[in-house]
């Protein structure tokens, strides 16, 4: 599985602020993958990733509250990048 596929899985299964997993299109969050890849390549921390995802939720998606899966998604993104 490629990095992009792993990241997409995590964004859909762990993050999913728009609650589309299992119902909507699998590419719903694909536009955010390049930015996440860049952060991971720069060895960001999980906290930095959380802040990045939270900013996307607030500024791009108008989500009023931080989604519950943000922390888990950030940790899994870091872990998946470490796998290589």
């Amino acid at each position, binding site marked *: 599985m490629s990095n992009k596929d792993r990241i997409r899985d995590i964004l859909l299964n762990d993050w999913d602020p728009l609650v589309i997993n299992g119902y909507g299109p699998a590419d719903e969050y694909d536009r955010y993958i390049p930015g996440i890849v860049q952060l991971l390549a720069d060895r960001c921390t999980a906290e930095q990733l959380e802040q990045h995802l939270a900013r996307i939720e607030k500024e791009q998606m*108008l*989500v*009023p509250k931080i989604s519950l899966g943000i922390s888990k998604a950030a940790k899994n993104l870091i872990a998946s990048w470490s796998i290589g």
Partner: protein
Amino acid sequence: MRLFVADVLLAVGVTPRTLMKAQGLDPAPLALLKANFNPAQPRWAAGSGRDSGRWSGGDANVTPVAFRHRGHGRGRGFDWIRHFLELFGERRKEPAPEEKPREPEVAKPETERIGPPSAEQRVSTPKPADFVGEDFGKLGVGVEKPDLEIGEFSKHAIDRVGEYGASLTDLQDTVANPLMVLRQSDGRFFYLSEKAVVLLDPRGRVITIYTSHNLIPK
């Protein structure tokens, strides 16, 4: 109801029973078909002194199309539901049954008489009121159509509209005339029409959109 509309509704978790009620059809046949029961099977009338109420000849010997393949209602994906709706579509075209002979007397089922709808009955399109209170898990709970109109679009939604090539008219129509509206846990509203899904926040801002064809049956 057009079958692809039924597909869309079933994809989001609407049960066949709910779908039938929304169409003005008696959902009793669902249980009857599963029980292999044929209400038109002649039976000895109650109080006849013989085996009253029992079928006068053999068993019902009914194997509905929907259940002819591996197990009752366990066909591949949603195929068995599609077959069932097709079966009902065929029944709606049948003429009214002729009078049966009096002996043995045809016993009416205890529930409403089941038969083809009258000529006046029209195919109705589901509406939000048909699903009020239905729980679709994390997708939300059915509610009456809120008094909302599309206001602004989130950046995310703008990008999605561009990717799908969705028309504003289709999106506005989805919000104005949805098949179903679900209220989600964070107060957002999920609007479903034949053409699109529109997710609105309580202020009428579009959070995201996608086409009904993108709905994935689970």
